[in-house]
């Protein structure tokens, strides 16, 4: 089986190389015979990669430790669930997994667009195949997951216990689905440039892909934050570590792209900008992979093989230079049909939104690579930490938050005074009332607290803007049809899925902003070394250390659990059980935190240490409003689903378009 896996990988590489050459030659020379032959390659490549992946999965599930990779990331006693996820637990498997997702996406694109646009699609397939080839070369010649151990050991080394967590099972695939997904719009953009077919066809063709990839990227970031929060036990969810930044930057640029393509669709503007953004998004996904695989930047989690990073750097260089050259050569064809008219217009609010998102992305990028730059320029490595990112990104983020309220509501082209009054007077009043109501209750001692206060006030403004939109739409519909409030609201949203789905996503975004602001400014923590029966106080909670027990959970896992009584106003309120787990074969214990989560705040407990006399060090965090973030995440997921849901009206329009194109291109080709 392992030989099959290895062989199919080689076969996939050969087919992909052939496919990409054949696609390009068929498109350039108008050769239908070559095209028909090339058109079989996406399926063959996918089938080969899939077979190879099944072989690797089989090796994991049957404990085949003759494979070095299986030995390194699994052992006999590992849960079947985690055996499946060990597939992407390390470098080699994660690259194969990446390739599997990419070839699957490619197959879907192939089925979706077969015979649809014979000028753009062959090039798009060729571009995707080039990227597949890059990954297959790495897998075949640099990090082969089917590397053998000559004398197979009896048991594997086991998966790192930190990764044995359900978030860690879904976080990497989700993030990869997002990362890999942007290959599709990127490939279509480049294909449009090559074929000079530069209307908004490529944007329409890949709109769903952009949305889906954005959705997965967003969820992947949130899942990662959740994992860090519940598993790593340091009381936070985001540390501005280079690896986190690597996942965050593509999300920011993709968000900018997602918004600015709307302007191109509606107004036929910002063409060069959109091309550059999608190129940048894709480059960022490769750059992110480079960061995590190179070890060049000091991070708490890096893969060990330093050489691999340079492949990615080289690939990145080739992509950026060739695409930039391509965009420049097509500049005359990328003229906008319209121009910006006024600062107070939807177009310019989208432009500013783009600038701010790129600003955050750039600041994050700069902070991430600053150690390298400073070493090259000044000879001293200078690093920046969370304070830098917070100082820069918080003010920009606040401006962005305000635009979340303004952008979707403000008039197109040029907003007049009466326009502005109609749209924004009430939300502004609501924000002012909110500001005054919060003023006496909210502490305003430090800069962080002032920022948080500002965040809350702006959040109220944005929420009122969005709710007003829902209200206006519902009232208008109720005036026209005999419907109940709920009926009118849901039909209206369902008829305009993209628009209202977007609004729902914005509500989620506001909640995440509020959650971050609240937890950053008002959190507190204490750590105490306690003997049995001792207690301490934090934010009105009394924490009493009651007992410590050791349990042998399985043959490989021993759990040490502390029992902590939480009292409030003299009454027992909750019992927390933070613990430390010891795994056979792993050098370090794993802390399992216990969290009492409410709307107001999280009580977050860590068993930091214990001694033979059963005294223990307990660390307790009070993190306000963290659950707002997770709720906001689910709202975003819901809103994104709504806007992604297939729309019959849109499908009809699309069919019309395709029919027209077929008349234009297909019929002459067949003659």
């Amino acid at each position: 089986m392992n030989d099959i896996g290895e062989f199919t990988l080689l076969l996939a590489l050969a087919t992909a190389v052939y496919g990409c050459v054949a696609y390009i030659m068929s498109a350039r020379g108008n050769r239908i015979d070559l095209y028909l032959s090339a058109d079989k390659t996406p399926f063959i490549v996918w089938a080969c990669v899939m077979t190879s992946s099944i072989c690797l999965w089989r090796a994991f599930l049957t404990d085949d430790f003759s494979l070095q990779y299986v030995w390194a990331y699994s052992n006999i006693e590992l849960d079947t669930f985690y055996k499946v996820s060990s597939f992407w637990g390390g470098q080699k498997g994660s690259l194969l997994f990446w390739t599997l997702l990419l070839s699957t996406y490619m197959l879907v694109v192939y089925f979706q667009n077969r015979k649809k646009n014979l000028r753009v699609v062959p090039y798009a397939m060729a571009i995707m195949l080039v990227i597949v080839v890059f990954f297959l070369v790495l897998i075949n010649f640099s990090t082969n997951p089917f590397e053998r151990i000559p004398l197979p050991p009896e048991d594997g080394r086991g998966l790192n216990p930190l990764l044995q967590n359900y978030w860690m099972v879904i976080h990497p695939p989700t993030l990869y689905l997002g990362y890999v997904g942007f290959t599709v719009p990127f490939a279509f953009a480049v294909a449009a440039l090559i074929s000079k077919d530069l209307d908004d066809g490529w944007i329409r063709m890949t709109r769903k892909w952009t949305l889906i990839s954005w959705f997965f990227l967003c969820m992947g970031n949130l899942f990662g934050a959740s994992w860090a929060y519940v598993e790593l036990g340091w009381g936070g969810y985001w540390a501005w570590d280079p690896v986190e930044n690597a996942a965050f930057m593509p999300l920011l640029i993709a968000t900018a792209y997602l918004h600015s393509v709307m302007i191109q669709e509606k107004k036929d503007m910002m063409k060069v900008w959109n091309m550059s953004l999608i190129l940048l998004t894709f480059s960022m996904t490769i750059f992110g992979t480079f960061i995590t695989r190179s070890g060049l930047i000091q991070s708490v989690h890096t893969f060990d093989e330093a050489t691999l990073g340079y492949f990615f750097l080289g690939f990145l260089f080739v992509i950026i230079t060739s695409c930039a050259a391509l965009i420049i050569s097509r500049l005359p064809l990328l003229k906008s049909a319209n121009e910006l008219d006024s600062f107070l217009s939807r177009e310019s609010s989208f432009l500013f939104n783009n600038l701010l998102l790129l600003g955050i992305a750039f600041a994050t990028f700069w902070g991430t690579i600053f150690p390298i730059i400073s070493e090259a320029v000044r000879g001293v490595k200078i690093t920046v930490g969370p304070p830098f990112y917070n100082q820069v990104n918080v003010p920009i983020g606040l401006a962005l938050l305000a635009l979340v309220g303004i952008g979707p509501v403000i008039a197109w082209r040029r907003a007049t005074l009466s326009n502005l009054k109609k749209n924004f007077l009430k939300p502004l009043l609501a924000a002012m009332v909110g500001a005054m109501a919060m003023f006496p209750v909210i502490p305003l001692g430090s800069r962080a607290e002032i920022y948080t206060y500002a965040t809350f006030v702006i959040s109220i403004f944005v929420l009122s803007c969005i709710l007003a939109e829902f209200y206006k739409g519902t009232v208008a519909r109720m005036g026209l049809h005999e419907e109940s409030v709920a009926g009118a609201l849901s039909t209206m949203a369902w008829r305009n899925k993209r628009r209202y789905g977007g609004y729902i996503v914005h509500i989620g975004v506001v909640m995440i902003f509020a959650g971050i602001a609240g937890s950053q400014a008002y959190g507190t923590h204490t750590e105490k070394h306690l003997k049995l029966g001792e207690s301490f106080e934090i934010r009105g909670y009394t924490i009493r250390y009651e007992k410590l027990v050791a349990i042998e959970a399985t043959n490989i896992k021993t759990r040490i659990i502390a029992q902590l009584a939480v009292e409030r106003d003299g009454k027992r309120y909750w019992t927390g059980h933070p613990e430390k787990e010891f795994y056979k074969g792993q050098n370090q214990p794993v802390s399992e935190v216990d969290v009492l989560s409410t709307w107001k705040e999280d009580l977050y407990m860590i068993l930091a240490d214990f001694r033979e006399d059963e005294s223990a060090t307990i660390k307790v965090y009070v993190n306000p409003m963290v659950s707002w973030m997770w709720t906001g995440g689910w709202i975003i997921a819901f809103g994104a689903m709504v806007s992604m849901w297939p729309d019959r009206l849109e499908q009809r329009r699309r069919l019309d378009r395709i029919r027209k194109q077929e008349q234009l291109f297909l019929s002459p080709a067949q003659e």
Partner: protein
Amino acid sequence: MKQKNIKFMVGSLLIVGAIGYLITMSISNTSQYFFTVDELMSQNVSYTGAGLKIKGNVVNGSIERDPNDYLDVKFLIEEKDASLKVTYQGVTPDMFADGREVVVEGTLGKDGVFKANTLLTSCPSKYEAEKEAGKMHPGKFPDADKYGEPGLNKAEALPKTTI
């Protein structure tokens, strides 16, 4: 038409400029010098009082904890024959032990003792473990006792019970 374009150029440049200003300001406010222990020792300029981030390995047997206050830790870190005395107040990470590679952030006092306010251990991980494991015969577990602190942080330290 031309004028309009200029207007938007200026507007965009203002935003870009503001962001650029924020970035440069914040870099100079919050940056820390990053050295390994030997690099720090060989610097001609004194970095006393400046924000520093130092990487080194914990010297075997150098970890001292105050018997009255468990959260008060003193230890030595070394790199290529240079060593540095570090004090730290707080819970140490799970992987903090003799021989581990750590990164400390804080300031260097006039007495040459480094006062750390954060203590990070490098990656937990499988990735690093792989390097270690590469040196030995496959199938052998890395020697757990070599890294674990005697008596402390060990599951066997407590009588086993079941619930």
